[in-house]
């Protein structure tokens, strides 16, 4: 039963495992760069999942070539099932760009944190923040 579920929903299992890995790194790691890596794994797990939704075995790209038109008689209907849906991939392309932007902003922030406080370890950073307010 469980094996069937895992095989049948391979993409779901994969994204949940990756997501939890990312979540662990975000909450459990002391180093801010590792937290950022965790955040990235978290984001990519979702992107992988949505891309997997658009995958279809044996399907082709959704482009109807001009000569295919000529080859098929007009009474034959084009089978939608033969074509893969490109939209999930296109959407995730945008999401990847957003993810790159987020990573860029986060790295810039980390750079400034390091210049300002001289550390990227969370416990040391909190110590220095506390002594700064005192």
């Amino acid at each position, binding site marked *: 039963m469980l094996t069937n579920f895992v095989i049948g929903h391979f993409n779901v299992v994969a994204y949940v495992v990756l997501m939890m890995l990312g979540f662990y790194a975000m909450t459990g790691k002391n180093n801010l760069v590792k937290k950022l890596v965790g955040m990235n794994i*978290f984001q990519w797990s979702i*992107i992988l999942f949505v891309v997997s939704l658009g995958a279809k075995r044996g399907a082709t790209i959704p482009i109807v070539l001009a000569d295919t038109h000529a080859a098929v008689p007009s009474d034959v209907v084009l089978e939608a099932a033969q074509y893969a849906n490109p939209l999930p991939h296109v959407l995730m392309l945008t999401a990847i760009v957003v993810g790159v*932007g*987020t990573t860029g*902003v986060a790295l810039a922030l980390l750079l400034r944190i390091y210049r300002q406080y001289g550390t990227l370890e969370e416990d040391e950073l909190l110590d220095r923040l506390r002594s700064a*307010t005192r």
Partner: protein
Amino acid sequence: MNVHQSGIPVLIVAGPLFAAFLLPLVGWWRRAWAFPIAIAALSLSFGASVVTAQRVLSTGPVHYFMGGWTPPWGIEFRIDPLGALMLLLLSSITLLIAIYSKHSILKELPDREGPFYSVYLLLVSGLTGIVATADMFNMYVFLEISSLTSYALIALGGGAAVVSSFRYVILGTVGAAFYLLAVGYLYSVTGSLNMADLAQILPALYETNAVRVGFGFLVIGLAIKMALFPMHAWLPGAYSDAPSAVSALIAATTTKVAAYALVRVMFFVFEPRFSIELIPVTALLSWMGAIAMILGSVMAIAQTDLKRMLAYSSVAQIGYIVLGIGLANADGLTGGLLHLVNHAVMKGCLFLVAGAIVYRTGVRDIRGLRNLSAKMPWTAGAFTISAFSMIGIPPTSGFFSKLYLILGAAKSEHWVFLGIILFSSVLALVYFVNVIRYMYFPSPAADADTAPPPLDPTRDEAPLTMLVPTTILAAAVVLLGVFNGEIVSRFIDTVIPASFAR
């Protein structure tokens, strides 16, 4: 289908967007031009939202199909009365705060006006885009535009601002990722991203797991973005460490827009019966809102830093809005939406006051505000009006939104929530009266040896570009209260779902 089409709503979003890309170039060539261009773009945005609101009120919802592709294939902008109200609110507040920021940015971030206003305009286009769009994935993109720019703006503040901003990046990205996951789930079963189209397809699929899981992720993702109680950890640091103008901007807009998105998803994309009965998320939200109202207020009482106090008060006010959504009857939702608008105006005003005080005196400690009423009478007056509204004293706007919430709680016989609304108002009274007491009555502080010295009472008001926006917002707090009936009947009543108990 006869739809009213107009390209004007696009200007509200695209005006600031194009100006944002123009600004770094112009700012590099002539730095003094950055501010006028930003103001021009925001004025265009404001003008367009006034025109849009007129059209929406006279002819009904306004649509625009991007590139001429009709929905559900193309991206659609759709403005209904509630959206028109939100756009008016966003474009007017962002314009006022931009005028205000002229002096405070010169002082806090010298020589960086070009990049600052560029990011500012991008944030505005992201926020207005969330409200205008009728496409789920497009909303994700706008959500991330507004989030990324607010991370950058918060980090501009000195000291611990970078650390607060990084915390916000991590949590905000988790929120956005959940939203994206939800969109993926919904798309996988419906094959559509258009909100109106989804609303038609979804009812047949309410029993499927994918829809239920997707809905759950949507609510959690947006709850993180709006800093609802257990997910509020990013908010106090982000609001209190950011530059003054930025604090006012994000406190007035970002969480409100996320709350608006939640209303859209819960009651317009999904049918109200789904979020009330099939997955009882409204009951859960009411309780989370109620806890936020109490804990946010208690934390606010404990603060000595004015901006941090206002930030915790925001956590409590989000609770009011969410409670209104969670009550899920006509009066409750009206109260929640009205409070959303009112809170944007009054919290914006309060943060502008805090910024003006820092600009003139450098004081952030509440106990250091003694003699403020003599030194900056207009600023202290604006604070007092907004604080009265936060407490809920008539005829200020806060009174009416709380009245609707109380009516909503009474109609659905949730007496516990009614009690919590009243109790939280008393807590608000405690922390705001404490500040007003220091401003107006220079009594010696209890812990006189640690408290900062009183201010010099000679009159030294904030510059006019800071004072005028603050005063306009304070006046708006009263006007929104006086004309609350108009706002409710014109903008809010028409969008309350028909199935709600009246």
